[in-house]
């Protein structure tokens, strides 16, 4: 429980700081400090148990138990040590940052990010579940991204942040894969369980995979070769961030994980050769680059890379003793490196530059800063009696005994060279910055910063000295206890002391110091050699890779999504056909079934010929649109006749009426589409499309043939046939199916129509404005039009036909339940009748006389249909249940009333409303194109009124 509180405190601090974004800087700092201090104190309270007695504090909480992702926390000595570093150094950094940041910097945001990062870091070291660990791991990547990019206006900050995120979060993904594999080998994702499964894990065939993936995660985070390049660019962050992330926390996460996993992963050749080698190489390269870096922060950054390599190498050795040394050095490095970063920050802050070539002689100008810096740098160099010396000695001792591929000299020699380089760059920091003559060209006049900025590093330097002098007393118990946790057993005997006697390590150490001093002495010469070395710049490689990634993505994207509907449709058709063919071929079976076919009579064949001819004509006339419309009518007519022939009178009725409405619609729209023939596509394109069409057509035809020639498989429609009259009260089974058995489909269908009308309305309502309105206003007709708008003959005929059509429509509606017909067809007939009226006497004239709004017709239609359905619920029958009864009235005789007819009424009304809304709106727009004419007569020629306008 208290572990939960411990973990929550930094996050709470982050929230608090974010919430206080308007408060004063001090309040914000106090909020962050408060949270951090509380956490630190809480952590200290665990010390007696964890460090003293070796207890492991746990807190268990199930999160996603089904995959073993638990929010389990545990605090063992290793975790305690890291938590101590995180919270302890964090505390100092918070104080330091309060004074370091300028008033222009948003302090609240900074602290929020920093506390977020702290929480994430703490999460890593407290997790008892590897999946949970990944959560925090990635959270550190994210929060460090924010911190590095804190000075968002600086391009280097943005780039550095992105690079750090890409590398560390990307590595985190590899780590995720790794721990998933590991967890599956071990049978659990709980660390405590995994740590007990060394045998199983190391003998598993998946061990190399898991190891490799986990190491990628560790190496990226800890900036190990070849992933080392991101770290220096992360130095664009404000110095407190660098000090925090790159001394004690972020980059140590990788090392932490190496230590954490050490008991189960270490000890194999694979571990040794991969981890130790990478560490060694990194140590060398980092040190070399650090030596020749002029930016103090870059120098420190590469030094960090080098020291992380140092640690990695130690853990890579796989021996308990090496692990002990590693743990000790983690502590030491954190102290002197954090101090050094802050010192570098102070110099930058006060002098206005971090370029080592422009510095020197600061000892007298900034005595406190310089003193602290010199001690810390000396520790980094490994000078006695500082803590850096102790752990470096021990490392060299370990290196001296390490045999790499039967080469006993390799590791000691390389380690010594690295140590020498380390001495050199440390001395360079020390000498080129603080010593030497004062310079006159500093950007600013340097003096010591306020205590808030030198106290934190000073405090750390006190530790550096104290540990150096009294290692066993101060660090001994901690190292002892942590080593036990890492090794998973009683650690080997070790002595933290200055003098081990004349050991090979001492010799190596001395050599290193001498060589390092020599290098610094001949620094200029060394530098000129270095600059001539052809070293590939990792950053450029990385950026090149990223650029190529973006370019590839871009060309992939534009190659695939070229915006051509023609291509998209071709893809769709081809995919469907290929899939269908694949299904048919793998499924097998026969094409033709056992059902007897019906011989075709000559009339049917002639209809078929008409259909083929008309279809061919449509294709031929596709660019002569008016003709195409006439031809397509024939197709519709033949289809309707086919429905007549094949016992589908309802379909024929519907087809006939839909057909005419569609044609009217197309004619209305056609009038306003450009009439000049569009360019034809190339012969190749046409051939391709023809091929796709032919294959698709054949596929559809074969499927139709295959089904039609098969004996039906006991279709459910026999139930519909049997129950239409008895249960649905109608003899027209199709209609009963529509309004009763499958009324829900019909309900959806009228809604589709209603929505179509709404969408059409919404589209056209605006057509008279803007660009479109302009285009309409400046419409140029391409042909001569007759001046006669409302021919008399037509008007006269319509006067008779409108009532006739309405009565026919009503009849069709009423009989629909028993004979072909129904609401939909009736609705269409009413629409056609009204459209006839519109055509005859004009939109304005007819519309002014219309009494209902078309919108409300649609609404009412839907409401009636739905309400009919709901009516059933009132009687606790399911939605759309129907009732019907036969009534006997005097004079009238027997008649039937069915609720389904009410539903059908809703259908008819909706259809009528929708069709009228769509076509009326279209006519309205068309009329706009012609300009409005005062029009109050139903026909142009009306002899009964005499000539309308006397000729001149």
């Amino acid at each position, binding site marked *: 429980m208290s572990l939960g509180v411990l973990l929550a405190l930094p996050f709470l601090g982050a929230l608090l700081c974010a919430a206080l974004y308007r408060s004063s800087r001090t309040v914000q700092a106090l909020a962050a400090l408060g949270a951090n201090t509380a956490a630190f104190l809480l952590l200290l309270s665990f010390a007696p148990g964890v460090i003293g007695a070796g207890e492991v504090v746990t807190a268990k909480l199930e999160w*996603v138990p089904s*995959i073993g*992702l638990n929010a389990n926390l545990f605090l063992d000595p290793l975790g305690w040590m890291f938590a101590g570093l995180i919270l302890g150094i964090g505390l100092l950094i918070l104080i330091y940052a309060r004074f370091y940041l300028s008033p222009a910097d948003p302090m609240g945001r900074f602290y929020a990010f920093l506390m977020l990062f702290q929480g994430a870091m703490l999460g890593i070291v407290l997790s008892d579940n590897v999946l949970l660990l990944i959560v925090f791991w990635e*959270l550190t990547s*994210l929060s460090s991204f924010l911190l590095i*990019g804190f000075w*968002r*206006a600086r391009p280097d900050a943005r780039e550095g*942040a*992105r690079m750090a995120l890409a590398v560390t*979060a*990307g590595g985190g993904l590899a780590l*995720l894969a790794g721990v*998933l594999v590991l967890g599956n080998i071990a049978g659990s994702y709980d660390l405590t369980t995994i740590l007990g499964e060394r045998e199983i894990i190391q003998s598993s065939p998946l061990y190399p995979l898991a190891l490799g993936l986990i190491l990628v995660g560790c190496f990226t985070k800890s900036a190990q070769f070849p992933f080392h390049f991101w770290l220096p660019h992360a130095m664009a962050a404000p110095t407190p961030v660098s000090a925090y992330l790159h001394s004690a926390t972020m980059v140590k996460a990788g090392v932490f994980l190496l230590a954490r996993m050490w008991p189960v992963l270490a000890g194999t050749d694979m571990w040794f050769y991969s981890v130790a080698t990478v560490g060694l190489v990194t140590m060398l390269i980092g040190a070399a680059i650090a030596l020749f870096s002029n930016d103090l922060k870059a120098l420190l950054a590469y030094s960090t890379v080098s020291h992380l390599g140092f640690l990695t190498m130690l853990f890579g050795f796989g021996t308990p003793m090496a692990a002990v040394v590693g743990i000790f050095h983690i502590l030491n490095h954190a102290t002197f490196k954090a101090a050094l970063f802050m010192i570098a920050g102070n110099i930058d802050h006060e002098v206005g530059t971090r370029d080592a070539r422009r510095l020197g002689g600061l000892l007298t100008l900034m005595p406190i800063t310089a003193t602290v810096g010199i001690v810390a740098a000396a520790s980094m160099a490994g000078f006695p009696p500082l803590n850096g010396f102790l752990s470096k000695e021990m490392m060299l001792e370990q290196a001296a005994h390490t045999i790499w591929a039967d080469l006993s000299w390799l590791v000691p020699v390389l380690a010594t060279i690295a140590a020498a380089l380390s001495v050199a760059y440390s001395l360079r920091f020390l000498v080129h910055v603080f010593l030497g003559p004062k310079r006159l060209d500093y950007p600013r006049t340097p003096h010591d910063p306020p205590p808030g900025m030198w106290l934190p590093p000073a405090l750390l330097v006190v530790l550096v000295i104290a540990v150096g002098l009294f290692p066993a007393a101060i660090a001994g118990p901690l190292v002892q206890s942590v080593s036990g946790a890492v090794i998973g057993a009683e650690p080997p005997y070790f002595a933290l002391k200055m003098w081990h006697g004349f050991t090979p390590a001492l010799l190596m150490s001395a050599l290193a110091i001498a060589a390092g001093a020599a290098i610094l002495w001949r620094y200029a010469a060394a530098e000129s050699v270095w600059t001539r070395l052809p070293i590939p710049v990792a950053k450029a490689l990385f950026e090149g890779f990223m650029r190529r*990634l973006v370019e590839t*993505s871009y060309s*992939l*994207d534009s190659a695939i*999504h070229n*915006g051509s*509907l023609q291509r*998209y449709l071709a*893809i*769709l058709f081809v995919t*469907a056909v290929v*899939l269908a*063919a694949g*299904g048919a*071929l*793998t*499924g*097998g*079976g026969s094409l033709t079934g056992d059902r007897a076919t019906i011989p075709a009579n000559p009339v049917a064949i002639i209809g078929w010929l008409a259909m083929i001819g008309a279809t061919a004509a449509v294709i031929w006339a596709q660019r002569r649109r008016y003709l195409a419309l006439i031809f397509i009518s024939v197709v519709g007519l033949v289809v309707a006749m086919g429905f007549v022939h094949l016992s589908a009178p309802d379909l024929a009725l519907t087809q006939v009426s839909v057909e005419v409405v569609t044609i009217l619609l197309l004619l209305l729209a056609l009038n306003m589409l450009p009439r000049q023939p569009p360019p034809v596509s190339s012969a190749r394109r046409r051939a391709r499309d023809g091929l796709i069409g032919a294959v698709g057509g054949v596929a559809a035809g074969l*499927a139709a043939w*295959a*089904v039609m020639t098969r004996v*039906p498989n006991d279709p*459910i429609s026999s139930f519909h046939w049997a*129950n239409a009259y008895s249960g649905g009260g109608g003899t027209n089974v199709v209609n009963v199916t529509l309004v009763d*058995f*499958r*009324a*829900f*489909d019909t309900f*959806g269908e009228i809604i*589709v129509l209603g*929505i179509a009308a*709404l*969408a059409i*309305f*919404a589209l056209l309502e605006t057509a008279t404005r803007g660009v479109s309105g302009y285009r309409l206003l400046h419409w140029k007709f391409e042909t001569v039009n007759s001046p006669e708008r409302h021919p008399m003959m037509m008007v006269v005929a319509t006067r008779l036909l409108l009532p006739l059509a309405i009565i026919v429509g009503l009849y069709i509606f009423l009989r629909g339940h028993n004979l072909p017909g129904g609401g939909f067809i009736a609705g269409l007939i009413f629409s056609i009748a009204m459209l006839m009226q519109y055509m005859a006497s004009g939109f304005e004239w007819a519309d002014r006389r219309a009494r209902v709004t078309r*919108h*409300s017709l649609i609404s009412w239609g*839907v*409401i009636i249909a739905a309400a009919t*359905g709901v009516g*059933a*619920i009132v009687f606790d029958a*399911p*939605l759309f249940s129907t009732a019907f009864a036969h009534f006997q009235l005097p004079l009238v005789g027997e008649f039937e009333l069915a609720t389904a007819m009410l539903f059908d009424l809703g259908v008819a009304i909706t259809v009528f409303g929708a069709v009228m809304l769509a076509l009326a709106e279209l006519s309205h727009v068309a009329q706009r194109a012609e300009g409005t004419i005062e029009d109050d007569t139903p026909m142009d020629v009306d002899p009964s009124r005499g000539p309308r306008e006397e000729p001149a």
Partner: protein
Amino acid sequence: MNHLIVLPVLLPAFVAALIMLFRRYTLRIGRTVSIASSLTLLLTAVFLLVQASDGSVASYALGDWRAPFGIVLVLDRLSALMLLLTATLSLLVLWYAIQTDLDRRGWHFHSLFHFQMLGLNGAFLTGDLFNLFVFFEVLLIASYGLMLHGQGAERLKAGVQYVIINLVGSTLFLIAVGVLYGVTGTLNMADMAVRVAAIPPQDQGLLRAAAAVLMSVFALKAALLPLHVWLPRTYANTSPAVAALFAIMTKVGVYSIIRVMTLVFGTGAGEAAWAPAEWMLPAALLTVVIGFAGLLAARGLRDLAAFALIGSTGTLLVAVSLFDEAALAAALYYLPHTTLAAAALFLVTDSVQRRRPENGDSLVPGPRFVSSEALSVLFLMTSIAIVGLPPLSGFVGKLLILEAAQPLPSAPWVWSTILLTTFVGIVALARAGSTLFWKSAAIGEGPLPAARWQRTADLMPATTILLLLAILTVLAGPAMDYMDKAAAQLFLPTAYIEAVLGGQGR
């Protein structure tokens, strides 16, 4: 009899029709009714989810005609989940649309919106294949209306493509349903499941061809490669708020794949078991790749969001097309996450573009804009969700998918694809965000330019979505419990079939 199950279909129909009636009066009535109805739908969905969570399958025989003869609505865990997701998302989008006056910028927004919900809910509830087609059409045509809402040249052009390609899709749907009826003699999916198992060998080819075409239709909706091609232009050119609602549209395709495959062509389908979807896994993997590559290639936030949708839906499809119980459970967890996350990204996109009069959504640095701080946080959180980084549910979802894929032979492909594309996603979104918020900040630290849009109320819906994702993360355990059981229910459809075929009705 429990009639509550029809409410998700009935209420939107009534409300849409009523709003249409009242359109002459103030918009306020429309808004009030719209919000009230959406809230009701949310409550209903919660209630139905609770009802379904005990594992029972409720079958509602419309018109009192028993299955397979009439149409049935079926409520199981999956459909309840989809209903809740729809209700949640639509309420949030509605909120946003009202906040930003989107509903003023064209006709009939609220009616179309409710018709859209009607279509979605109907599709999720129906137990009948043809009825599914009908509701596909309802939701599609409503989506056409919404997609075009507000108009403008680019939107219209994209709309033409969207409409046409979906019309072709509908044609294919009909053909597939037709053959399935012709071969099996039924339309009810449960009944079809029973009959498919007994289809003789000589009809197998026909059956599978039809099933494959049906899958291609669903894949079109779900934006599965190579049928995803329509999506970027459509989603990038509609108003982002509508695109946010459309995040659920691809899930209709996914839902349909899950439903039809597990129920009709699942383990019990005899020879045809799983056959119609064998091609899906490679396609889904490529979809993820294309989606995340598009994220890198995007030159505007809208493109970015569209590709993020493709990529994350692709990830979902990867999990689905493993056709494994654990993977399906993972997919079901990931499904609401990806829907909401994509929606949030679209909403953020809209908020950004609304505040940048000159540069709109394009990923170029421009002057600082109002509430860019808040938006940068939202963008960051949304990106985290979309990419699947901790601490949001996307991470849990991907984790679940990886974990589920592990024992399967296709694991290497699934793992490498998901992990590598996540990496690409991180890179891409970091690029985009740093350009948009950091680089822009660098350009003008001066006073904020006067913008049309000064309020911050429009950030609330996206914030709420992130909050919901956080809740989904924290409650991943109980959620997975539900998803596990839902997946189990899908993989053993006997209860479903019994509930449907043994249900009431004349």
